[in-house]
């Protein structure tokens, strides 16, 4: 059984991918068939993931690889492979499980859409590509799936292609991530050049194993940074984060699956997968590449959390919170807490999918309204959505003890506090924790409390098919903490490959109290600040945000995403515009005139040959035909039709012949 699943790892991504092709061939009038195919594919992937997960439990530090040769050129062979280790196994479980919940949710959410089956085809395609990404044992294979998920993301962001904003967002996402992917690709080429292999694990010769790393030397830093460019693009790290909030133009289940739980975490996963490249030659756990990761992560985490405070779109707030949390994971990886980062990734996958689906349910209940300022008082109308959303909010804010996000966040804070290079990231992250609690409190007060406003007056609870996945994910968000809590840190030890120990004493740590204080402060400040939203308060009109009233300039700055889109518009985009115009001008006037000159030469030659043809050859042919006709006309005159004339000519001929012979004789 175990042997079989190791050999059949490739089936896990293949089943949803094949399902996607099948669904594409289904007519939109057969929706149940498409749903059945998608859900069956996902359940099959989940079942196989469970089978793959079980053997990894028995031995700490378990790892199985299946390598094969893709093609050979000369003496070299390009080898790909699959790997099953704790990192891949937990990712498989998370993706398949969250994916299944979101598939089910989509049945309800997309019920009214005219391209229902196409949506499920794309979702299945994404799911397959993402599952393949996590079990790839080759940087090249990972890159292939990496691009496939990027493509799926492009298709799904632009799913409502008739909206210009969705089409623009899809393009923006694709192009922005491509900038990072170019770095990734260069890093990959450099890595292949230096180490001669792209396999991660190959019996000690893989590029992240000792023998492979030994060949890299100093170049490892640059390779790691180039690969990190790809991770920055995919995981929305500053300065390539701009596509992720725009990606919210896609349907909400897409935002939940791709732009919150799985694909955007692929960057974090990638860094964790090639972590030995980053940590090669570390002194005291600090390397230049890891330091870059930390500072990028910190910048991203804090910047996104600040921007989230001033956003009005329910999904954009969550998008910025995703960016912020991904920054947090990057910090964790950078300071050496790979396991803490991965744990947060997994926990984040569950609770952020929950929050997005909750937001989808709210949008569905408010008839497509995204603006939180027009909602309010929904906790009475949508009790299930409200309670699950609150669980997600507390997990995201990092409320200790009962919520998965709390434990993982403490773990990250713990490792960051011990980073030898600088204490600043630690304090910035603490500020980030307060901000996270603040913006989530703001959002929940705006949406669920207070008076009902324009969009929420006709609000209604979503159907069972949408609330069931919410409940399932809420249960995951809470019970996942069982394997996270330091008293029985099963997931931590499972990922590091140590045997699990049980120790209640470790449950209570100083970080727990610090965390409690910070989150409490954030929530309390939020409640105090936003207690009267939507109503007039003193001199503040009802439709003005309290922060906007107190600090209009700061609010405007944050509301416009720190003017980063405008900055890019005036720098990168303006530059490419100028470059494009320049190339256009070159093309039109320089290259074109060259081409035209050659064309003119050809034309001239044509004219010369034409003249020669007409005056020389044609005239000769004409003359000879005229001559032939003239001769023919003269000869035809002899043919009078008078037999006697012919006969007399014959007679004259015979007479002449006779005279000739007579003369000869």
């Amino acid at each position, binding site marked *: 059984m175990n042997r079989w699943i190791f050999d059949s790892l490739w089936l896990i991504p293949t089943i949803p991918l094949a399902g996607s092709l099948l669904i594409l061939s289904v007519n939109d009038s057969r929706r149940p068939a498409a749903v059945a195919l998608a859900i069956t594919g996902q359940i099959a992937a989940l079942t196989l993931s469970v089978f793959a997960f079980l053997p990894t439990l028995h031995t700490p530090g378990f790892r199985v690889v299946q390598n094969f040769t893709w093609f050979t050129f000369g003496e070299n062979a390009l080898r790909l492979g699959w790997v099953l280790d704790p990192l891949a196994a937990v990712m498989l479980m998370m993706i398949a499980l969250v994916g299944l919940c979101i598939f089910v949710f989509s049945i309800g959410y997309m019920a009214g859409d005219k391209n229902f089956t196409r949506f499920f085809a794309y979702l299945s395609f994404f799911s397959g590509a993402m599952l393949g990404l996590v079990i790839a044992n080759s940087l090249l294979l990972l890159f292939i799936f990496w691009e496939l998920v990027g493509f799926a993301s492009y298709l799904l962001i632009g799913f409502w292609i008739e909206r210009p904003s969705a089409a623009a967002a899809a393009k923006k996402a694709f192009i922005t991530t491509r900038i990072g992917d170019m770095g990734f690709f260069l890093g990959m080429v450099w890595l292949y050049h230096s180490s001669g292999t792209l396999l991660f694990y190959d019996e000690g010769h893989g590029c992240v194993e000792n023998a492979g790393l030994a060949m890299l030397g100093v170049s490892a830093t640059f390779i790691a940074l180039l690969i990190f460019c790809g991770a920055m693009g995919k995981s929305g790290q500053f300065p390539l984060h701009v596509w992720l909030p725009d990606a919210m133009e896609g349907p909400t289940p897409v935002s939940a699956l791709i732009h919150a739980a799985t694909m955007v975490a692929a960057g974090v996963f990638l860094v964790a997968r090639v972590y030995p490249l980053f940590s090669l030659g570390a002194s005291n756990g600090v390397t230049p590449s890891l330091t870059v990761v930390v500072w990028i992560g910190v910048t991203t985490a804090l910047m996104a959390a600040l921007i989230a405070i001033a956003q009005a779109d329910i999904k954009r707030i969550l998008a910025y919170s995703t960016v912020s949390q991904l920054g947090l994971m990057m910090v964790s990886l950078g300071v050496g807490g790979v396991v803490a980062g991965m744990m947060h990734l997994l926990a984040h996958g569950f609770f952020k999918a929950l929050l997005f689906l909750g937001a989808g349910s709210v949008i569905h209940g408010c008839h497509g309204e995204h603006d939180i300022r027009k909602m309010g008082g929904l906790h009475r109308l949508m009790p299930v959505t409200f309670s699950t959303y609150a669980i997600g909010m507390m997990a995201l804010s990092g409320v200790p003890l009962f919520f998965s996000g709390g434990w993982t966040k403490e773990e990250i804070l713990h490792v960051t506090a011990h980073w030898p290079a600088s204490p600043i990231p630690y304090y910035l992250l603490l500020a980030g924790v307060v901000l996270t609690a603040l913006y989530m409190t703001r959002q929940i007060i705006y949406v669920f409390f207070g008076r009902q406003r324009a969009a929420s007056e006709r609000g209604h609870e979503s159907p069972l098919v949408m609330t069931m996945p919410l409940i399932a994910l809420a249960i995951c968000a809470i019970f996942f903490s069982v394997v996270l809590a330091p008293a029985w840190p099963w997931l931590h030890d499972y990922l590091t490959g140590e045997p699990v120990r049980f120790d209640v004493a470790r449950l209570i740590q100083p970080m727990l109290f610090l965390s409690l204080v910070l989150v409490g402060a954030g929530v309390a400040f939020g409640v105090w600040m936003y207690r009267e939203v939507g109503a007039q308060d003193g001199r503040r009109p009802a439709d003005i945000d309290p922060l906007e009233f107190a600090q209009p300039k700061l609010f405007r700055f944050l509301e416009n995403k720190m003017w980063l889109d405008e900055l890019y518009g005036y720098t990168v985009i303006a530059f490419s515009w100028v470059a494009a115009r320049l190339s256009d001008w070159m093309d039109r006037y320089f290259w074109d005139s060259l081409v035209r000159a050659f064309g003119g030469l050809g034309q001239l030659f044509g004219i010369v040959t034409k003249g020669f043809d007409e005056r020389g050859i044609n005239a000769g042919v004409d003359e000879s035909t005229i001559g032939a006709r003239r001769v023919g006309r003269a*000869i*035809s005159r*002899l*043919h*009078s*039709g*008078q*037999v*006697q004339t*012919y*006969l*007399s000519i014959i*007679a004259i001929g015979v007479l002449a012949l006779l005279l000739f012979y007579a003369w000869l004789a």
Partner: protein
Amino acid sequence: MTPTLQIFLIISAALFSIGLLAALSRRHAIFILIGIEMMLAAANLNFIAFWRFNPGSLQTTGVMVAIFSIAIAAAEAAVGLALVIAVYRHYRTTNVDQLDQLKG
């Protein structure tokens, strides 16, 4: 006067020339046929004369050829007359000047 080959050949040539002249100059198809018959008769006369003044004249070869030729001439005359009648029925004339269908 002893008949010699020359006399026969001269008579034959004269007969041929008269026939040729008739075939070339007459406009009536029947006269042309008669001219052709005269040329054939001149040829037959030549055959007989060469046979008669030849050393091996005991055999009847020359006479046989002449008789054969006359038979053919009879057949030819029949065909020619039939042609003339057919042409006359078609064109209502036997004047060869007006029969120029072979004109190129």
